[in-house]
């Protein structure tokens, strides 16, 4: 059996660095989950991310906003090496997850992805599997056999995803039989079941109605007690409601990063202000 439980490393104290735009963060001790340094990403010859340096605080929600095509998804996917699935990508710079470089040559991307889970824009429960199988598949295919353990983890994950009460009598039904919002929460439960340390979400509510969206936002609020969350959203109100920190990207560059309240009330950059007040994007 593969041990999926990783030991939590020591807290990392943010060093003061005036060149980075997150100086708003370095006043007191903040634990960091990701330290991204000078990251650039290319698709073939096209540079999608340009020299981004950014620290993602632990047990908080960081939202990534910016006009479409500015590299939000690419940046998010670089945090668990999912962008590598596109052939011809190239990375420069480093991403530290709790102090370890994700791009070191001996790092297995599968292990990175077990530690850094992901929820996609379009909910994608596996169509051939039941609700229960959808949640436990990550454990099963990573070698976990113990039925009791699987059942416990199934219930725990569905409870954390605020879905247990709605599906506990229907675990054998197809995952695709659920409503759109429930399917997205099922996908969150599926990601939680392998016990990641971080959850990345790429516009998780953009296909959902307001009520389902509110449920997911509430869930994000609950989850940040135990997880670090990075969420891409094109909805500024959502960023304002759910996130503690906000990063504004434009044309592949990080323009501004800081506490959400500051970014929305008193941005230091003119471009950020223009975007937030709806003057472009």
């Amino acid at each position, binding site marked *: 059996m593969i041990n999926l439980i990783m030991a939590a490393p020591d807290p990392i104290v943010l060093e003061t660095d005036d060149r980075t735009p997150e100086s708003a963060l370095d006043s007191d001790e903040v634990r960091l989950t990701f330290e991204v340094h000078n990251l650039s990403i290319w698709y073939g010859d096209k540079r999608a991310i340009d020299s981004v340096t950014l620290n993602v605080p632990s047990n908080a929600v960081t939202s990534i906003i910016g006009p479409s095509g500015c590299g939000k998804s690419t940046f998010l996917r670089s945090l668990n090496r999912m962008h590598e699935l596109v052939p011809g990508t190239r990375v420069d710079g480093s991403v530290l997850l709790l102090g370890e470089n994700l791009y070191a040559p001996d790092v297995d991307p599968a292990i990175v992805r077990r530690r850094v889970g*992901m929820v996609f824009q379009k909910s*994608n429960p596996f*169509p*051939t599997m039941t609700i229960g199988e959808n949640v436990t598949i990550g454990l099963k*295919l990573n070698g976990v056999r113990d039925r009791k353990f699987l059942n416990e983890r199934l219930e725990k994950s569905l409870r954390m995803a605020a879905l247990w009460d709605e599906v506990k009598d229907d675990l054998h039904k197809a995952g695709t039989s659920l409503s759109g919002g429930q399917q997205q929460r099922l996908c969150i439960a599926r990601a939680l079941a392998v016990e990641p340390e971080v959850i990345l979400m790429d516009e998780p509510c953009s296909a959902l109605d307001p009520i389902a969206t509110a449920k997911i936002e509430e869930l994000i609020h609950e989850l940040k007690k135990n997880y670090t969350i990075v969420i891409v959203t094109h909805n500024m109100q959502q960023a304002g409601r759910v996130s503690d920190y906000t990063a504004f990207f434009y044309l592949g560059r990080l323009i501004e990063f800081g506490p959400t309240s500051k970014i929305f009330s008193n941005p230091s950059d003119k471009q950020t202000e223009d975007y937030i007040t709806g003057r472009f994007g």
Partner: protein
Amino acid sequence: MHSKDKDRHRWRKFKSGLVSFGTLAAAVLVIAPLGLVFFHLLVNGAGAVNWDFFTQLPKPVGAPGGGMVNAIVGSLELLALGSAVGIPIGVLGGVYLAEYGSARGNAMLRFIADVLNGVPSITWGVVVYGLVVLRFKGFSAYAGGLALGLIMIPLILRTTEEVILLVPNGYREASLALGIARWKTIVNVVMKTASKGIITGILLALARIGGETAPLLFTAFGNRFWNHDLSQPIAALPLQIFTYAISPYDDWHRQAWAGALVLVMGIFCINVLVRILTRDRAGTST
């Protein structure tokens, strides 16, 4: 309304009617041969399809009765041998084309598979004759199965590739994002999602080779008795029909009709199975 307008209207209606009639006639022409074949088979063959046909060996000329049980079982054995060659290579090759490989290499493989799909089936018989029958100095069930398997490979390969490419990328991503290894993702998520399509492709390939005669002529060869050793010649329904049909005897002709009817019914059953599978797929994928 002016009378000129009325005339035009009538002329348009006439043209519309003409086209409707034309398409209907074409449809009838398409369906008619199928109906004729069935009708003819039923008229000529139904009388000889009886319990004996499925349980008895062929009788010598002149002796009444007898059946084709050895040919029916032989055909099933040949299909099994062909499947043992064609299914694993075809399915794995299709998965390779869809999931691995370089764009240029894949384009070439695809082209080769399409060319092979168009090769007349007797060619496969000749190839296997040269490679296997001559070398091992004898016709055999193995040689027949190999010839059928070689025909199955490109058929199954292309259908498998197509249905695997239809699996939305979101499922691959979801699985890989759970830290599941690539090959496990392909087997447990991608192939499982495409399984009905893969099985459909296999069944269609079986339906296609089930009636093949030419590739068996110089390989399986045929046998009037039971085959007890796969390295010996074996009977097959299409071969038996061929032999009986070109014979000068009336009772053999009747047996050939009966054999053809049984063969067509078997292939028909496979196609019905395919319909059921594909209807299911359309129903659940929405």
